[in-house]
């Protein structure tokens, strides 16, 4: 754990990366555990981050917090900068939030691994992977904060 923490902090001090204005504009909210409604980005799939930045910028992703925070945050980002930011965050070591209620984890695991065929609910694992790591444009879910995941799932259902 200590080594991980050291490695994480070392990555954050990388000259020209963590100190660059573009990155610091993100890490105000998205560093470490995330802040408020902002999800953590460390270890997120690069292609996913890049796609979401462009979707925020084009006002395609339009949930309330997206509009309030991300539209402004991404307005001045070029595709090249989005690409660099995506790679930067994807290479940071992910740290799990571990903030869900432990008594419902078993149920959650069952839904994640097996889905609920009777209700036409897909098994998340098929796309998001056995450890929630994601792949390509499919996002990492593993380690995201409980309140964030819950809100996003409820938004999908709307």
């Amino acid at each position, binding site marked *: 754990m200590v080594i991980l923490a050291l490695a994480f902090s070392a990555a954050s001090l990388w000259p020209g990366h963590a100190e660059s204005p573009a990155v610091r504009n993100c890490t105000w909210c998205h560093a470490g555990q995330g802040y408020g409604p902002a999800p953590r980005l460390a270890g997120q799939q690069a292609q996913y981050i890049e796609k979401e930045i462009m979707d925020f910028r084009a006002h395609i992703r339009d949930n309330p917090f997206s509009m309030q925070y991300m539209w402004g945050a991404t307005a001045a980002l070029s595709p090249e900068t989005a690409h660099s930011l995506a790679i930067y965050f994807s290479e940071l070591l992910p740290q799990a939030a571990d903030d869900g209620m432990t008594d419902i984890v078993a149920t959650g695991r069952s839904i994640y*691994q*097996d*889905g609920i*065929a*009777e209700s*036409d609910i*897909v*098994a998340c*694992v*098929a*796309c*998001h*992977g*056995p450890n929630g*790591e*994601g*792949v*390509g444009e*499919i996002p990492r879910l593993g380690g995201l904060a409980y309140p964030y995941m819950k809100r996003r799932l409820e938004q999908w259902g709307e």
Partner: protein
Amino acid sequence: MDLRVRRSKTAPPNEERGRRLRSVVGLVLALQVGILAFAFAVTGRTGDAATVVASRHGVDGKLEYCLECHGASGQGYHGFYPIPRLAGQQTKYIENQLYAFIERRRTNSIMFNVAHVLSPAMVAGLAEHFRSLSPGPIGDGPRGLVKAGEQIFQNGIPDANVAACSACHGPDGTGNDQIPRLAGQLYPYLVKTLANWAIERGQKPANPDTSAIMKPVAHSLNKPQIEAVAAYISYLK
């Protein structure tokens, strides 16, 4: 000239009338039974599982669920695991595979969970519907391997006792009856399937199935050959 048409020159008149009457009655009865069977089949009221047809609404709803993983038009999807193309697949093959998942002759926990809630009518309805989908292939194999793959697909590997794939799967890879369509299948799915044949298929030795026919083929192919033939197949329309 006598223009009357005589049906029978030898049978006495009453016997002839009796024969005609029976054939007419038989036809009418057959027609009535046919209409009733059709009506019952459409409303799904017959008790016999083999003749129950799932209502269109039920199949369409479940189909949407399948397509969430298998691609909006059944073309397959690159999830964390490669999810195979079902579009244009042989009806009998899909049915066989769904039952293989249910009976765990083919091991896949995601597909077992999905399949074991399906009624026989639903299995048949879904299998039939996938057959009718026809998106183009995703086409994801390494282009450089296609030529070598075509060689193997069309001519086999005589030295390794491997028959040409085309011999059973057809020169265009569209399969026939129980033999699956391969055309347009996802490259990573084909590679994984051939490499893992012995540990995924035919897992109930007491209940052997048609997967046995591919076991020696999959075993005899080495990794470069699998990758080549998979690349070629991934572009077939």
